[in-house]
């Protein structure tokens, strides 16, 4: 038994020496005075050794992938930690907190932060920072994608991804994390497979478990895990067989002062909810597949068939999934659904400013523009705003200077407008910055790119499924400069 202890110490010692070597870098005394100072230092401390020169940090080869994960809430507390290898002290997060302090906004924390012995790669989702600790050359995108998958899984399991939800389900969270990553290699990240290994908590199941003493861990190997269609389990049964597809498009655009479009692009997705018995094989064809020249598919889509015939052919996963996402960037294809007339002016020497904003529908193919929300960060010098809205309600936060106007639906006969005056600090000079207007909106039953599904067919199963396709257009990052 003692020998084992010995071994352990030896290992620890050798690790220490390698770390020492890593920091044993020389630094030049840059100035004469500094050199002299170094000479007078006691010789036991080797002169000039410093950790300042450690960016980029040197890492050990061979220890790949994600080492640890810390979850940090918006008030800067670590509320969960998971280590896949040896335990990394949570003090490593101090570097993250430093960066967080430096950043003016929570979202401005840089995603990759070097520390003397590790790298921290973080994403911010649902106001929680997911901070991964890595020790070696790992593709950062790999880590970021994995973290996203973790967030998606939590959301999938607990409905929301909040600190409370995670704390409430900490054991499931731990089991999930262990299942998702083995030694830093992603093991199972498909929600279907995970759900078979670890059953999501439901109120009913918790009650049943406490009564019967059964568990929420699957006892069987997931069937789909190793089949040719890993994303689908076998033996799926439904009484109502249905397949719904949502075509959702978001317009990202920058409109300049004069109303002309600087950039406009569409980020589209087709999300599906498929509840079909057995092993259905679906094909989906479009009226105008040429629109889709930049697409990313779910792994279930047969790429060859798409290349050759422009038809989506796939065996769908069970339940909700994203079938494809696409990107339309060529500008003549992107219609701009609303126009904005604005006049924001400040007169030199006066402590008042004018504000006028009118919205109108543009290229909407006759569909109504709904759920319109206008927001804008007014100049810092604005003390207060006194507006009147022809419809909807507006709020102005004098602290953050954020103006937001909930317009609702645009009536083409009576265009919504917001007019009024802004008061400035007395004697302050005219603000330099021009506020940008951010617009959110929704248009039902239309994909703004004009994408239309032609038909959906099912092979491989005998029953007749119920099929439905819905279109929707939203504004993504839709910005109007003034």
């Amino acid at each position, binding site marked *: 038994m003692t020998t084992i202890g010995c071994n352990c110490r030896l290992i620890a010692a050798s690790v220490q020496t390698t770390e020492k070597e890593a920091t044993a870098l020389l630094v030049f005394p840059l100035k004469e005075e500094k050199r002299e100072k170094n000479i007078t230092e006691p010789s036991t401390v080797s002169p000039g050794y410093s950790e300042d020169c450690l960016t980029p940090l040197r890492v050990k080869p061979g220890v790949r992938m994600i080492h640890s994960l810390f979850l940090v809430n918006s008030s800067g507390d670590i509320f969960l*930690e998971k280590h896949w290898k040896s335990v990394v002290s949570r003090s490593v997060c101090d570097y993250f907190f430093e960066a967080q302090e430096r950043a003016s906004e929570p979202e401005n924390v840089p995603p990759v932060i070097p520390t003397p012995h590790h790298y921290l790669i973080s994403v911010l989702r649902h106001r929680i920072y997911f901070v991964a600790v890595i020790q070696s050359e790992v593709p950062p995108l790999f880590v970021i994608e994995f973290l996203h998958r973790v967030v998606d899984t939590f959301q999938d399991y607990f409905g929301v991804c909040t600190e409370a939800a995670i704390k409430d389900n900490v054991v499931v969270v731990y089991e999930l994390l262990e299942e998702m990553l083995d030694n830093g290699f992603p093991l199972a990240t498909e929600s279907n497979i995970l759900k078979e290994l670890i059953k999501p908590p439901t109120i009913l199941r918790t009650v049943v478990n406490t009564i019967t003493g059964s568990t929420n861990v699957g006892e069987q190997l997931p069937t789909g895990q*190793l089949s040719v269609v890993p994303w689908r389990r076998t033996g799926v049964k439904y009484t109502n067989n249905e397949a719904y597809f949502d075509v959702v498009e978001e317009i990202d655009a920058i409109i300049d002062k004069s109303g002309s479009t600087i950039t406009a692009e569409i980020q589209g997705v087709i999300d599906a909810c498929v509840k079909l018995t057995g092993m259905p094989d679906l094909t989906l064809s479009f009226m105008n597949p040429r629109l889709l020249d930049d697409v990313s598919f779910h792994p279930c889509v047969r790429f060859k068939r798409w290349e050759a015939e422009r038809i989506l052919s796939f065996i769908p996963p069970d339940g909700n999934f994203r079938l494809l996402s696409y990107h339309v*960037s060529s500008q003549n294809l992107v219609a701009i659904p609303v126009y904005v007339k604005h006049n924001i002016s400040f007169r030199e020497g006066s402590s008042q400013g004018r504000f006028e904003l009118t919205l109108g529908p543009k290229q909407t193919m006759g569909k109504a523009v709904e759920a319109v929300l206008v927001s804008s960060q007014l100049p810092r010098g604005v003390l207060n705003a006194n507006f009147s809205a022809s419809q909807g309600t507006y709020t102005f936060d004098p602290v953050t200077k954020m103006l937001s106007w909930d317009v609702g639906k645009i009536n083409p006969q009576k265009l919504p407008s917001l007019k009024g005056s802004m008061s400035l600090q007395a004697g302050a000079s005219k603000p330099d910055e021009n506020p940008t207007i951010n617009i959110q909106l929704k248009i039902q039953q239309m994909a703004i790119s004009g994408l239309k599904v032609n038909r959906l067919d099912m092979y491989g199963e005998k029953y007749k499924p119920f099929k439905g396709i819905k279109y929707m257009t939203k504004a993504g990052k839709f910005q109007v400069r003034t």
Partner: protein
Amino acid sequence: MTDSKYFTTTKKGEIFELKAELNSDKKEKKKEAVKKVIASMTVGKDVSALFPDVVNCMQTDNLELKKLVYLYLMNYAKSQPDMAIMAVNTFVKDCEDTNPLIRALAVRTMGCIRVDKITEYLCEPLRKCLKDEDPYVRKTAAVCVAKLHDINAQLVEDQGFLDTLKDLISDSNPMVVANAVAALSEIAESHPNSNLLDLNPQSINKLLTALNECTEWGQIFILDCLANYTPRDDRESQSICERVTPRLSHANSAVVLSAVKVLMKFMEMLPKDLDYYGTLLKKLAPPLVTLLSAEPELQYVALRNINLIVQKRPEILKHEMKVFFVKYNDPIYVKLEKLDIMIRLASQANIAQVLAELKEYATEVDVDFVRKAVRAIGRCAIKVEQSAERCVSTLLDLIQTKVNYVVQEAIVVIKDIFRKYPNKYESVIATLCENLDSLDEPEARAAMIWIVGEYAERIDNADELLESFLEGFHDESTQVQLQLLTAIVKLFLKKPTETQELVQQVLSLATQDSDNPDLRDRGYIYWRLLSTDPVAAKEVVLAEKPLISEETDLIEPTLLEELICHIGTLASVYHKPPSAFVEGSRGVQHKRLPARSGSGESAESPEAAPPAGGAAPEAAPAVIPSQGDLLGDLLNLDLGPPTSGGTPAPTSALQMGAMDLLGGGLDSLLGGDLGGSPAMGTGFGGAPAVMPASLNAPVGGGLGDLFDLGGGVGIPTGAYVPPKTVWLPAMKAKGLEISGTFARRAGVIQMELSLNNKAMSVMTDFAIQFNRNSFGLAPAGPLQVLTPLSPNQTIEVSLPLSTVGPVMKMEPLSNLQVAVKNNIDVFYFSCQYPISILFVEDGKMERQVFLATWKDIPNDNEAQFQIKDCHLNTDAATNKLQSSNIFTIAKRTVEGQDMLYQSIKLTNGIWVLAELRVQAGSPSYTLSLKCRAPEVSQFVFQCYEMVLKN
């Protein structure tokens, strides 16, 4: 009923309570207790004290409980190794379970327990699991091999697991293949020369097949592995590209970027006129654009990589400028990256759009971003010549806004524009001068002063302007002071009549009242120039300046090539070579883009490139540079100084460097017409007097060479000096390549360096420092590089070393860690010196002392070596060794064997005694070494071998 209840018990007796619950008879209670333990673990509490109790819960048929216990074990096994052994039996049993889930779980957990003792028990179950009928178990076992290798590499090799792992690449299940590849590449990473992933067309084919079927993560591993392969010809390259392109449509951005890496690399081999080449270029743009619509964190990484891609192949994204336009609510780190790429993509075709955008950004709120936007306008002007005028007018518009930091930034960039397009936009100077008072940042002030000085003849009140700055001279930063000094001197040279007083004033301020040496030196130089020869001063101060170009901010081509091979990695995010990220020299493998080659020709594989390491490889035998050349070089030198005073030194090509250095240094020092001044009238004769003293020795040495050569060409007169080896490759040091060797000449240890500038900019301000080392080697003087090292130039420097530096035992003993600094950065490398440079000249021992010492040193300290293939006779060997300060004290001949008794003394006073046995007619010598510090024996033997064989 949620898990948060597990957090509620935080009172003192918690551990005690848990202990009781863990030992409860009720299954349910046990499970709840383990859950509580796990919950405490997640918030970083130490629950290791419960180890034995938790391990007791392990033997259960409840899978959830088992999993939880396993989770606990992984966390704490390392701190409780003795206890962990208790768990081994259950592990081994679980590896035989009928449920594959449990088999996999057991083997997986065992691999995570990083305790040496456990690994022995792991081998058998692991071997079985690698051949398990269930692919889920196989794929888990594959990863386990990598884990085990991390703990005990030797064991993995001995047990043959690596071969089994290689076989798994041909597994029928794609997930197993992917995990095997992942495990192999992880192991290969730590053993760069192991040749584990021996890629050939067959295995590549297997990987490509698996690529289509495995999970997204597996695809990343496979693609990264493919990127290390070098196709034999363009056809193979094309076929791989064709099979990889579908990955560009993957939803996982890491897959996309890895695919881009493979394509960028293999594209290099395709002929440009091939149709497919064009198709591929077109296919690359959309996925890159799509990455920019993802979350900001992904965007950031994507942008850093796109930055590399647009530098390598600007044609891919040349029409996609608009996607890089900044949205006002992008995080700042995305904004700055987008801006950088916008400038790289700017061309005549899109400059109008770009400028309009940049002008828009200059009115944003974030100060950093605004500054960078203004700077970007200047960079556009320099990059796109046709747009310069438009850029200048945009900048003038911005200056009119009177926003303080915008104005200052604009002035700084206008200075750069003046440098690029001299005498073109002076009309704006008037506008600039209006803003003189608002400048409070040193950089902006310095820029403004430079402009005034440069165009002094066209600014009527230049003297007034500069004078106004002079009032607060001492409060200015050094940058401004230097600039002011130069500007006023320029002004004086242009308008000497009115400004004499001003120049006097600034010169005295700079030389008498300043304690900044740079400023003083510059002041003195100007002063002397002006007082001795105003014509020369004019030529020096008002000389034509080289134009600046946009090249300055491009990444150096060799580094860019390497980074392209590492797209998607941390290296690509930091734009630093991967070697900067990996500890030590192992694991560093420089990747290069493959050269284009036609069918049939084989391209050099990147794996074949020698791994560049910090430690210098064993010096390869090579001849001393041809002496004929050396002589020629010497004769070419127009040397007129007296020939006395040089101590004869062994031959060296390197000493010539010192001569060059001298010449070069003088040229620049005497630059201009100064050569004609009386002080220098005697020409070179007086030269050494003004040179730093330490240079005299090398000069003398160089002269000595001349005579040595004249005396007897071909006779080895000095100690053997190994040829130079590359210590610091250019790739690791921003274009500075250092090669060198060590020599001992006339009792002085010298480090002989060749500094080669492979970068595009001039290097100056060289300095050197050593880390503490075994024999206390330290530079005896500063590194004498007097002239700036211009691109593609090589300087030879000889650095005398002392042995009085701080001592620290190094591993290996003769390892020396060196840091070299220049104006760009500080670089580190390590090299090994032959221990023979430490053999001192008075190393001949008295016979009697030798005998006594030989007996006195215990026999344990004796080391024997064989020197093979040595064809020297005894006398020649004696002579050769003697010249390296290995002294023969006595010689004995016994039964046809010559026995040479030799002694060596090291600089630190250690004696090494040697017995060298030479069998007549046999090429093999036997060397016995005795020393009180036996660790040096190995190195002494290496010296023997080196000396005798060269």
